[in-house]
């Protein structure tokens, strides 16, 4: 039966040729550096996690109503009345937080291994922009359940741009669709979450993957030596002819990480279902009742705390924007030849201090 279908398709568009030239040459014969580690799978895991988000998101979309009067109730209906609605919602909610964690880990490990360096500056830039989009994804999705936590944390976060001189109020006004968080804000965030951001993210990831394919996979500076021997002034793809084949060696690693990701996701759903949803997340949004403790989602906590401790609000925003800008264009600023961070004490020190500061601010912001 399968043979007949294959033959039928082959006659129509040359399936055999595609399988032979594309699948075999591009995937099965693809070579991976010998010294790759488990962290090399984080990019693949990001794509898997995003696909899970897209799938569960589409399921939720069939029952969710983006209107202030029905949003909270529709989410509750998904949790209580829709068959297995709770499963898809939990997967989407936990998955969004895990996705941000994975992208963050991916960025950290790429930085530690110096894999952002020439000729991969654009790959880093694309990945960095995708990370920002993922954060906006999480932030825009945060408002949709229309509960106290989402309503008030969005109120605070959408007010942050007011710190920017001249155009700050306009930005905040555009984000909110008025002076306050209303149904207009919900519609805007909904459109952003389901239509605009997915298109931007898929485009960025497409560019990111294309660049990885064209430049070839970078080897780690640790373990077996693998020097980037290629001319600096002309294009040459890094092929790793002496490396391991992608299939089955690296494919197995990717599948293993995918299973680990799903196991962690269901561990959280089973044993820590309220990890990302505090009590206020289960109370319908009430614009007339300000909760005592308004906090944004964990991935914005450090930024929020940073704003709280810097006495001038514009200075706080400006410093953060500069940090983000430097982070995005870092490959263009880093002119040193040495790739191994262990042999670069100053950069290593700065990186550790920044990471520690982020952790401290995050913990501080929680309390």
């Amino acid at each position, binding site marked *: 039966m399968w043979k007949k279908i294959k033959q039928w398709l082959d006659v129509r568009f040359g399936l055999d040729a595609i399988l032979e030239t594309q699948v075999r040459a591009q995937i099965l014969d693809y070579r991976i550096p010998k010294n790759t580690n488990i962290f090399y799978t984080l990019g693949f895991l990001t794509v898997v996690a995003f696909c899970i988000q897209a799938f569960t998101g589409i399921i939720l979309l069939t029952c969710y109503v983006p209107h202030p009067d029905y949003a909270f109730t529709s989410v509750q209906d998904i949790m209580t009345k829709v068959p297995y609605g709770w499963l898809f919602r939990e997967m989407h909610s936990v998955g969004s937080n895990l996705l941000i964690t994975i992208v963050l880990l991916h960025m950290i490990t790429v930085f530690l291994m110096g894999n952002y360096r020439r000729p991969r500056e654009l790959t880093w830039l694309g990945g960095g922009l995708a990370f920002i989009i993922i954060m906006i994804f999480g932030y825009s999705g945060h408002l949709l359940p229309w509960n106290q936590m989402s309503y008030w944390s969005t109120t605070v976060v959408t007010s942050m741009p007011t710190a920017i001189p001249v155009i700050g109020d306009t930005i905040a006004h555009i984000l909110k669709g008025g002076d*306050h968080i209303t149904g207009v804000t919900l519609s805007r965030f909904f459109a952003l979450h389901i239509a605009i951001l997915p298109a931007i993210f898929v485009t960025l990831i497409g560019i990111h993957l294309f660049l990885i394919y064209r430049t070839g996979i970078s080897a780690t500076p640790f373990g077996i030596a693998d020097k980037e021997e290629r001319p600096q002034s002309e294009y040459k793809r890094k092929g790793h002819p002496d490396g391991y084949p992608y299939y089955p060696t690296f494919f197995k690693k990717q599948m293993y990480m995918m299973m680990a990701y799903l196991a962690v996701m269901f561990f959280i759903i089973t044993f820590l279902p309220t990890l990302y949803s505090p009590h206020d997340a*289960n109370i319908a949004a009430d614009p007339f009742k300000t909760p005592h403790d308004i906090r944004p989602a964990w991935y914005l906590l450090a930024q929020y705390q940073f704003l709280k401790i810097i006495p001038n609000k*514009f200075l706080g925003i400006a410093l953060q924007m500069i940090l983000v800008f430097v982070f995005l264009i870092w490959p263009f600023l880093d002119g040193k030849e040495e790739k191994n961070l262990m042999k670069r004490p100053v950069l290593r020190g700065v990186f550790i201090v920044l990471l520690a500061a982020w952790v401290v601010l995050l913990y501080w912001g929680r309390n």
Partner: protein
Amino acid sequence: MRNIIIAVAIIFLLPATVRAGYRQDFEKEFLTKTWAGVQMEENVCISCHASDTMKPGYREITEEWRSSWHAQNNISCEDCHGGDPKDPALAMSPQRGFVGVPTYKDVPDFCGKCHIGILASFRESGHGKALKSGGVSPSCMTQIKAGGKAPNCVTCHGSHNIQKASIDIINEQLCTKCHSYERAKIMKQALFLTEDKIGRIGKSIEALKREGIYPETDEKNLFSTQAEFRALFHTVDANIVKERTDEFTTRLDQIDNNVKATYQELKQRKNFSAFLMLTFAGMGIVISLL
């Protein structure tokens, strides 16, 4: 390239020095500001009563109200006293419904504007009849202490610092201000089991909410059952409470069963997701062994 970045950073940071403010201003403007539209409008009753020009006794009212159950449920000054909280000139205008402080006898009608069921029961009660007659009711005459006034709502619940009602309001210290504790004790015993059940179901519903489930119908049913039961209690007639306790117990059992069924459902969900977790963990182990 680096010089360009530094130059951009300096230009970007320059406005910060122009707009330099202080931490207090920042917190006031940005962090501790009340955000919602209605709350952003100042309530003139509160601002005036909290000002230094007000007598100390009147100033305390705002503080008492802020910690009250009414404040937690957005019941503000004008909801009870009328008036216009947005306009200082009309805040105490009778044309805007301002009624000020009710007389002692009128307090039940004042509270009963919202607590309708309780007002009806209170009027039928010994407490209510005594208040209406201007002193004591025939049934309480022998027990009420000499010189004591018949009770109104404030006697037991307080006024501006009113807290969430509970069975603990019936206590020897409070009741013996007017009469012996014996009858009140019988009433408290009659209420105890039902109140305890209401409390337990309430906690279960709160726990469900923390688990991400919002049992709206059960919560509403519990609220109405509790309200009706408490209205019944305001008859201060232990016999009536005992007679109708079975009816309330049945209603509470129904709510309790629904809540328990939801818990059972939650348990099944946990089992299912634990099964998925183990499946993926197992597949991961198999892949690593291949």
